[in-house]
């Protein structure tokens, strides 16, 4: 295969696009985990709901933006209901209990979606204005829609950064991630803060789902795979750290994409083609888990651990 610098750049861009999607999902997960000390396996459900709601509303209204807005509002509502009904009693339970309850929620919602929208996959169309390509470099067209995804993800990251760094809520979030007792001692309405954070995470996951709709198949269980990757991301990034989640998302996205496309030709330079054909994809699919084990070995708390726990 013909590898040149433009090819590498394009693949990097593909990796960043994947990473940005992962970030939108991981951001909520890491906040909920870091601040409320809750493992939420049902986070992937919110991503899925976002995609479904967006696709349905696009079909009904014909407008992509309305669809995205509806997805965010809908998942936000679903997220808040989930928080109020099932998570409130869960905060003080063990991680094992949390894993099981949220796993149960995932089963429930995956099946609910199949009942409501049917078992076959749905497909959303890319809005006409974004269906073309833009030359990122002369003679290197790139899908406009994917550039929009990257832009949206980076905007969301900047928004979160500003929120966490410069607002009162952000201060509470930072304080909560490093020292929960302190925040409680400040007399903050901790329940309200939790609901807010959970809603924020739900909205971001829904945004990711809505954006993924026009590219991927919208189907029950589509959140499961993303959830596992998002868990990997937040563990690598350091639980509770938005900055860590962002860097780890991009890292995982690019490592996965480059691994998938470059490992086989790379191996072929020093192994036989047959061996490279075997080993390349095999290592590529395990790459991010190897990366995680490697990082955890040297930094057991991830790349950006909150200072005090």
């Amino acid at each position, binding site marked *: 295969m013909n590898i040149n610098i433009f090819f590498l750049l394009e693949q990097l861009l593909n990796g960043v696009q994947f990473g940005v999607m992962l970030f939108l999902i991981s951001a909520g997960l890491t906040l909920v985990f870091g601040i409320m000390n809750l493992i939420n396996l049902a986070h992937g459900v919110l991503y899925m709901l976002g995609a479904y709601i967006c696709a349905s509303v696009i079909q009904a209204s014909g407008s992509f933006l309305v669809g995205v807005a509806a997805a965010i509002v809908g998942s936000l509502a679903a997220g808040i209901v989930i928080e109020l009904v099932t998570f409130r009693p869960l905060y003080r339970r063990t991680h094992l209990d949390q894993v099981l309850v949220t796993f149960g929620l995932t089963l429930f919602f995956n099946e609910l979606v199949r009942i409501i929208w049917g078992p076959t*996959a749905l497909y959303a169309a890319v809005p006409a204005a974004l269906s073309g390509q833009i030359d990122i470099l002369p003679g290197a067209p790139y899908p406009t829609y994917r550039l929009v995804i990257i832009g949206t993800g980076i905007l969301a990251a900047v928004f979160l950064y500003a929120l966490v760094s410069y607002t009162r809520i952000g201060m509470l979030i930072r304080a909560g991630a490093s020292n929960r007792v302190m925040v409680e001692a400040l007399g903050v309405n901790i329940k309200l803060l939790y609901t807010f954070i959970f809603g924020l995470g739900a909205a971001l996951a829904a945004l990711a789902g809505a954006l993924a709709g026009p590219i991927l*198949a919208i189907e029950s269980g589509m959140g499961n795979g993303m959830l596992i990757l998002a868990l990997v991301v937040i563990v690598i990034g350091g639980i509770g750290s938005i900055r860590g989640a962002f860097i780890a998302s991009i890292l995982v996205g690019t490592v996965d994409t480059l691994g998938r496309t470059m490992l086989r030709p790379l191996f072929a330079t020093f192994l036989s083609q047959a061996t490279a054909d075997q080993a390349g994809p095999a290592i590529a699919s395990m790459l991010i888990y190897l990366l995680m084990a490697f990082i955890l070995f040297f930094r057991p708390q991830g790349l950006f651990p909150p200072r005090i726990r």
Partner: protein
Amino acid sequence: MNGKLLAALSALCLMSSTSYGADTVKIGLITTLSGPGGVMGRNHRDGANLALEQLGGKIGNLKGEIIYADDEQKPDVGRQAAEQMVKQDKVDFVTGVIFSNVLLALYRPVIDSGAIMVGASGGPHEVAGEMCSPNFFSASWQNDQAPEAMGKYMTDQKIQSVFLMAPNFAAGRDMLAGFKRYYKGKIVAELYTNLNQPDYQAELSQIRFAKPKAVFVFYPGGLGIQFIKQYAQAGLQKDFPLYSVYTQNETTLPAIGAAANGNFETGFWSPDLKNPANVAFVKAFRAKYGYMPADYAASSYDAVNLIDSAVKAVNGDLSDKKGMIAAIKQAKIHSVRGDLKFNNNHFPIENFYLFKIVKAADGSYIRKEESVVLANHGDSYASKCPMK
């Protein structure tokens, strides 16, 4: 006391499992009803139902019943469903099965149980070759056949180089093997993607940099929708014409529409085939289900008719397996594909057509018949099957 308990238990079990007389023919239909493959499974189910309905609910003068199971596109789930069907439901026939890897997983338990299986989609080369069995028929195709036709067509068109892509599973590998058997140009690359991979952007970038004259792919059902939409979004369509098998058909065209306009497919059937059985079938199918049938509906429809012909031939004596097998081998039905004959390995000998995706009068996209590429084409594995 133990006896009482046993009696109570058995009464309970008898109540829960409905009992049938010997005058019911039970057909187990295992197919993919959920996920991206679900669009194809729906074709299977509706095609079989239509056939049963047109037969007046009877299979060879006995009451006919179709039992469904969703294999979720997972081999292990399909295998478990098949075991339950042959052991608990004690079905007489098994049909359906979209994915070749699922077929390979459930093949042994079904065949070993003595049930007769009439496959209505995937035809992996193992089953056509060494693993062939008198109890197995394919009402659809052997995987290599359609891509062989495409390989021949693209060679005839003097397309000098091609980039191959398929998901990495049994059928994907068969499809590319079949293509390579008949294609004489240069293979720029042969790329297999993970079967559950949702996004192909990284691979699409590779196509642009490899600069082939054309691209040949196999992405069935929902995978095809994803692939072709992403292919169009990446702007590859104008530089790299797309050729495919089982990818741009009536299951995917409603979703991909204009993105596929003018592309080519090869296959054994399309709703555009003009034989009378087919015209009637397509008309009835659209009237009943409101959408355009695809290959899977056609083969499923034929499969149920083949089963009916078998039960008729033995006058409803379901224990006469040999008689039923011999009857199916005769293929005495009005197949919607036109002529149908069975090879020694019980796979079809049939025509493979070139189809072009065009916009129909009603604004939808269909596969228009262009020409016959390989006439009365048998598969390449029949010689490996010991059956005569």
